[in-house]
C-alpha cells in the first residue's frame, strides 16, 4: 500500500525549498550590481524584479509552511529535485524580460542548461546582450556547478541531520570534512580560489591577446566560470574559438580539467596528499578513456584529412575531446563543423567521451570515471575468478581517497546508475530520430544534453521542436541529479495523488 504524504511532509519540503529559493535569489545581486556598474539600467531593473520574486516566493513558502521537523531521506530528495524546477522557472524571468528569447520554454531551457552546467543555449543574438545578462548566464552555471543546495547550505542552513541528506540529494555524497555545512563551505573555498586564479590567468592572457582591459577581465572571469563549472557557456557566440590562441586554450583546458575532478580529490591535494592525483581510480580511468577516445577521434580526423599540420591536428582533436570528456562543452570549431568537417567517426568519439563524463562529486556530468573504473575492476575480478582455482578467494581493491575492497553492493550501485544513463542516452537519441534528425547528430546532441556537456553539432537551435526542447530539459535535469532525486519526486507526486 502506498501511503499518502502527510501535511507535515509538505510543510518540511516547502520550508526547505523556500530556503533554497532565497539563497538563489540572493545570487541575482551579482548580475544586478554588474548591470549597475555598466549603467545598464534596463537590465538592472530586470534583475531587481527577479530578486524580489525569488524572495517573495522563498519567504512566502517558509511562512506558509512552517515546520520544526528535520528532513528525512525522501524529503531531501524531493526538495533537491523540486527546488531545481522552481529555480528554473523563476531564474528564467530575466531571460524573458531581455527579449532575446522566442518563448518562456526557451528561457527555461537556458536556465536548466546553466544550472546543470550543460552549456547548450537558445538565447538569440548573444553578441548583443548586456554585461548584466551575460553575468547571469555565467553565474548560474558557476553556482550550478557547486550545486544550488550547496549555496543554501553555505549561507542559510545550519548543520542539521537533514542537511547532509539534502546535499546528497543533489548528487554529491563526499564529505570533505565531517560537518556537511563545512563541506559545502570547503567546496566554495576551492571553487573561489580557482575562480580568482583562472580569472587572473585568462584575463591577463586575453589582455595580451589584444582585448581591452575591461573586456579582458570579464571574459577571463566568464570563461573561468564556464570552465571550472564544466558548463561551457562563453561570452560570445564564437565560444572559445573567439580568442584564436593556443595559450588561452591551454589555460582553459587546465581549468576545466580541474573542475571535472572530484572535490574530495581537490581537498586531498589541498591538505597535502598530492599522490592522490595519480593513485585515484577516477584520474586513472579518466586518463585511459581520454586516450582511447582521442585515438578514435584522431582516426576519424585523419580519414577526413582536415588538419594537415600535426600540431593543429592534435590541438583541435585534444581540445574537443577533453572538453567533451570533462562535459565542459567549450569548442574551438563551429558547431556545424562537427558534421561538415569532422565526420561521423570523430563525432562518435566525442559522443563516447561525453557519455563517460568526468568525476563523481565534481561539477561534471555523465556516467563518471569512478563508475567506469569500478565496473572495469569488477570485470577484471570476474575474469581472475574464472582462471583461478575454485577454492581461491579473489579480492579486488581500488583507491578512491582511501584504499577499499571492491564489494558487490558498490558494483551494483555503479551498474544501476550506469544502466540508467545508458537508457537515458538511448531514449533521448530515439526522440531525436523520431523528430527526423540523423542518427549520429541525434546521438551526439542527445548525449551532450543528458551528460550535461553542451557541445552542439547544430541540432539545438531556437527553431528546434518544443518537444525536443522539453526532452532535453528533462534529460539535463535527470543527468545532473543522477536520477534518484527526480525519481523520488515522481514517487512523491504519485503518492500524493494515489496514496491512502
Amino acid at each position: 500500500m502506498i501511503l499518502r504524504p502527510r501535511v507535515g511532509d509538505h510543510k518540511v519540503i516547502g520550508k526547505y525549498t523556500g530556503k533554497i529559493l532565497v539563497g538563489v535569489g540572493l545570487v541575482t545581486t551579482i548580475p544586478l550590481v554588474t548591470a549597475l556598474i555598466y549603467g545598464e539600467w534596463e537590465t538592472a531593473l530586470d534583475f531587481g524584479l527577479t530578486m524580489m520574486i525569488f524572495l517573495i516566493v522563498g519567504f512566502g513558502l517558509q511562512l506558509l509552511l512552517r515546520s520544526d521537523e528535520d528532513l528525512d531521506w525522501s524529503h531531501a530528495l524531493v526538495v533537491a529535485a523540486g527546488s531545481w524546477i522552481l529555480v528554473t522557472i523563476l531564474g528564467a524571468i530575466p531571460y524573458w524580460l531581455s527579449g532575446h528569447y522566442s518563448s518562456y520554454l526557451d528561457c527555461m531551457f537556458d536556465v536548466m542548461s546553466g544550472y546543470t552546467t550543460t552549456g547548450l543555449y537558445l538565447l538569440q543574438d548573444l553578441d548583443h546582450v548586456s554585461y548584466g545578462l551575460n553575468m547571469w548566464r555565467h553565474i548560474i552555471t558557476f553556482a550550478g556547478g557547486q550545486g544550488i543546495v550547496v549555496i543554501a547550505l553555505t549561507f542559510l542552513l545550519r548543520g542539521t541531520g537533514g542537511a547532509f541528506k539534502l546535499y546528497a540529494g543533489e548528487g554529491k555524497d563526499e564529505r570533505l570534512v565531517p560537518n556537511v555545512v563545512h563541506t559545502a563551505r570547503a567546496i566554495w573555498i576551492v571553487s573561489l580560489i580557482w575562480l580568482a586564479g583562472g580569472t587572473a590567468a585568462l584575463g591577463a592572457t586575453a589582455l595580451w591577446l589584444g582585448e581591452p582591459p575591461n573586456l579582458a577581465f570579464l571574459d577571463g572571469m566568464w570563461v573561468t566560470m564556464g570552465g571550472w563549472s564544466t558548463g561551457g557557456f562563453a561570452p560570445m557566440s564564437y565560444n572559445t574559438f573567439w580568442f584564436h590562441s593556443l595559450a588561452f586554450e591551454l589555460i582553459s583546458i587546465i581549468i576545466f580539467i580541474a573542475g571535472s575532478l572530484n572535490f574530495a580529490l581537490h581537498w586531498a591535494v589541498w591538505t597535502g596528499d598530492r599522490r592522490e592525483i595519480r593513485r585515484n581510480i577516477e584520474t586513472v580511468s579518466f586518463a585511459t578513456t581520454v586516450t582511447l577516445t582521442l585515438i578514435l577521434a584522431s582516426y576519424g580526423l585523419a580519414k577526413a584529412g582536415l588538419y594537415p599540420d600535426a600540431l593543429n591536428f592534435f590541438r583541435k582533436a585534444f581540445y574537443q575531446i577533453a572538453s567533451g570528456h570533462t562535459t565542459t562543452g567549450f569548442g574551438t570549431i563551429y558547431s556545424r563543423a562537427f558534421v561538415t568537417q569532422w565526420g561521423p567517426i570523430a563525432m562518435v568519439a566525442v559522443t563516447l567521451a561525453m557519455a563517460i563524463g568526468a568525476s563523481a562529486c565534481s561539477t561534471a556530468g555523465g556516467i563518471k570515471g569512478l563508475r567506469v573504473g569500478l565496473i572495469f575492476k569488477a570485470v577484471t575480478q570476474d575474469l581472475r575468478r574464472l582462471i583461478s582455482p575454485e577454492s581461491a578467494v579473489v579480492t579486488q581493491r581500488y583507491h578512491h581517497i582511501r584504499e577499499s575492497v571492491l564489494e558487490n553492493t558498490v558494483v551494483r550501485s555503479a551498474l544501476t546508475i550506469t544502466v540508467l544513463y545508458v537508457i537515458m542516452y538511448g531514449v533521448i537519441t530515439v526522440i531525436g530520430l523520431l523528430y527526423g534528425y540523423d542518427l549520429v547528430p541525434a546521438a551526439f546532441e542527445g548525449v551532450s544534453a543528458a551528460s550535461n556537456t553542451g557541445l552542439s553539432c547544430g541540432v539545438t537551435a531556437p527553431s528546434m521542436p518544443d518537444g525536443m526542447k522539453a526532452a532535453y530539459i528533462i534529460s539535463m535535469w535527470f543527468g545532473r541529479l543522477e536520477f534518484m532525486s527526480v525519481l523520488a519526486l515522481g514517487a512523491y507526486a504519485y503518492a500524493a495523488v494515489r496514496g491512502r
Partner: protein
Amino acid sequence: MTRRRFVTIVACLALCGGLLAWFVVSNPGPQPSLSSNPTTGERPAVSGSPSSTELVEHPARWDGKIIAFVGEAVSCRMVRGSYAWIHLNDDSYAERSVEDGGGLTGYNSGQAVWVPASLTSQIATYGGYRDQGDVVRAVGVFHAACAEHGGDMDIHAGALVIEQPGRAIPHPLQLERLVWLLVLVPVAGLLWWLYDTMSWRQRSR
C-alpha cells in the same frame, strides 16, 4: 596503481595523438595571393560573396578561394603585432540587433577575419549591447582549417571597406517595470521581516 603505470598512461595520451597526427602530415597546397599580378597589374578575381552559413556548411567548396565577406564588426578588435583579429557577423542582427528592436531570427553567425591592424583603425564602432557595429566588407582568402592559426576557420583579408557606419542603440528606462519593482520591494521586505520575527520568536521559545 603504480606511479610507473600512471606515467605510462599519461605518456600514451600525448604519444598516440602525436603519432596519429603524423599520418596526416602533408604540405598545404599553394595559396592564392591577394596582391596584384606583377606583370599584368591585375587584381586577383573574387570567387564570390558566400554567407557564413554557406562557408560552414560547404567549407571545402570555398577553401583557398578569394571571397568577399560582409558583416557587422562585433565586440572589439584584437591586435596581435601588425595584424588583428576582427569578427564579422552576417546574420540578420547585423542590420538591426535585438537590442535595437530587431526580430528574433536565430543564433548569431559570422566569420573570424585576420587583417592588417592598420586597416582596422577605420572601424569606429563595434557591435554590442550599446551599439550597432559598423558593417564591413572584407576581401581575402578563406581557409577551412587555417594552418597558420591552429586549424581555425578564418578569412585572411587584404582589404576592408566600411559599408555602413555603426550607431548607438538607445535603451530607455521602462517605467512599467520600475513601477512593478517599487511595488514588489516592500512586499519582499515585509515577508523577510515577518520571517525574521517568527524565526526569532521560535528560537527564543
